[in-house]
């Protein structure tokens, strides 16, 4: 008799993805949904939505959701979690949302050690608004506001959020994973679950950066975008666990 070994997570709606072909947002979302299912938190999780493509999850997520203003997801999550400490609260933010307009909110929530989880989808561009330069855009990367490629002379350098956040004392778990290949995907799934588990144990702030792509605004095929990540994104944004207070050194 056939045995079902793989299915859609309960935390996702049974509908096809409307994200662009090859986009890694749906994969990132599915990994989070899997982890929440495995932790038995479907009815307890609260998904704080940002502004940008990452907010499109409002069409696919099955669970309580709160839409926040651009960059303010960590502030909204702070207010919610402080009022409802038993809920599993997570924000899912893009790089413009988190590392530009919301820099104060993410740093301060991390520094307070707020007991929620932030998933950070870093695709080094503003996808929804048409591919402008983000704080995470790589040097030389062409965007709609850096026609000849990002120039450090006038726009500075890409911000490494895991490295910055892990300098703070309060965060409990800080890690980065790349979703362009199966190895990174498997590691990401474990990291996501670990971060949520820590939150359930009341350990404090947990942060998981997921390196993703944007074939549409990068002007690449999906496969080209995965190769670009391997040769350009990953060498600059080095995957790894930057902080894990639960692992004894």
């Amino acid at each position: 008799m056939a045995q079902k070994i793989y299915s859609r997570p309960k935390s996702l709606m049974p509908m096809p993805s409307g994200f662009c072909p090859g986009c890694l947002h749906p994969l990132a979302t599915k990994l989070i949904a899997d982890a929440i299912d495995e932790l038995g938190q479907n009815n307890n999780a609260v998904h704080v939505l940002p502004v940008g493509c990452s907010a499109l999850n409002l069409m696919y997520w099955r669970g309580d959701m709160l839409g926040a203003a651009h960059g303010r997801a960590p502030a909204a999550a702070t207010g919610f979690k402080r009022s409802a400490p038993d809920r599993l609260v997570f924000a899912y933010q893009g790089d413009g949302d988190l590392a530009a307009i919301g820099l104060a909110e993410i740093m301060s929530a991390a520094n307070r050690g707020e007991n929620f989880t932030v998933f950070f989808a870093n695709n080094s561009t503003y996808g929804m608004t048409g591919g402008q330069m983000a704080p995470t855009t790589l040097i030389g990367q062409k965007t709609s506001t850096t026609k000849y490629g990002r120039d450090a002379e006038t726009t500075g350098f890409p911000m490494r959020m895991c490295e910055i956040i892990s300098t703070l004392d309060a965060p409990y778990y800080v890690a980065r994973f790349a979703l362009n290949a199966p190895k990174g995907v498997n590691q990401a799934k474990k990291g996501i679950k670990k971060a949520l588990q820590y939150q359930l144990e009341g350990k404090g702030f947990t942060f998981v950066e997921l390196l993703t792509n944007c074939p549409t605004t990068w002007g690449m095929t999906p496969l080209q975008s995965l190769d670009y990540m391997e040769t350009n994104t990953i060498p600059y944004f080095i995957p790894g666990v930057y902080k894990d207070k639960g692992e004894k050194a």
Partner: protein
Amino acid sequence: MAKVLMKGTVAIAEAAVRAGCRFFAGYPITPQNEIPEYLSWRLPEVGGAFVQGESEVASINMVYGAAANGTRAMTSSSSPGISLMTEGLSYLSGTKLPALVVNISRGGPGLGTIQPAQTDYLQATKAMGHGGFRVMVFAPSTLQEAVDLTYECFDYAERDRNPVLLLMDGSLGAIMEQVEFPPMKELTDEGTRKWNLAKHEGETRMPRMLTPVYPEVILENENKQRALLTKQWEENDVRVEEFMMEDAEYVVVAYGISARVSKEAILNLREQGHKVGLIRPITLFPFPKKTFQNLNYDQVKAFIDIELAIPAQMRDDIEVAVRGRAPVYEYGRSGGMLFDDESVYDAIHKIVTGGAE
């Protein structure tokens, strides 16, 4: 309960706790710092949460998050900080979340001054943010009234699922008066549980979404509902005090501290035989238009708008309500400068005796 002597800002904070407020987030700014200072220790005493936000922007969004859980939530600030909160206020209204925002106002524009002023009237009553939403605006003129209104503001906010603004200038925030506090309100889940994200024991329900983004057709419909709500406020929720209005030929219009000072001036003018009265809007929005409609314009000769604002900001609303049936004059100070009852007396006296332009 016995009366206690209390500072304006602290009285508001304690009244909020009594009203069931269990979440506060705010950022330091003069002249309202006693509110977050008081609540930083008072809220934990009653099982609530206090967060000192990294900015006014963050603080209003923390309030947004707490309100989504159905928790009674508030923030307070002063003029420049309120400007920073306007994005969040628009999102609260857009997502239909209740909250209390207190503005202990100071002189502007810009960083201006920490001294008292009433220069945020237009912002408060016309547009507390982008997108065309309105909020109810309450303006107390005594500390007892500030306590009572704070206590009620949360009920209005939850009834309408819309933020409410308490607007009080820095001088009322700084003075001390005797106040009597209402009892601690016992809140139940009923009435709030239908829409918020709070989970209740043994409850099975579909997942809920609270979001400030809507498809066009639904958004237009939501805005029609908001227009209807505004109309209902004008029908049912207007609050106004009429002082010595029965035979008044000259009508002072003033709110908050300006109304207090004006009352003193009016009593002195009455002693001199001048028939002067006062209309004091307690709700700045909805504005008490009907009070002006019901006046006898064979009797009323002129209106005098007295505010801590130059130019006067409430004047537009008075002109609309008066509809040209009598002239409207104004007198005010600005930039954090105050008037006393003598200068207000002189300003009114000049008009009463025909000396005004």
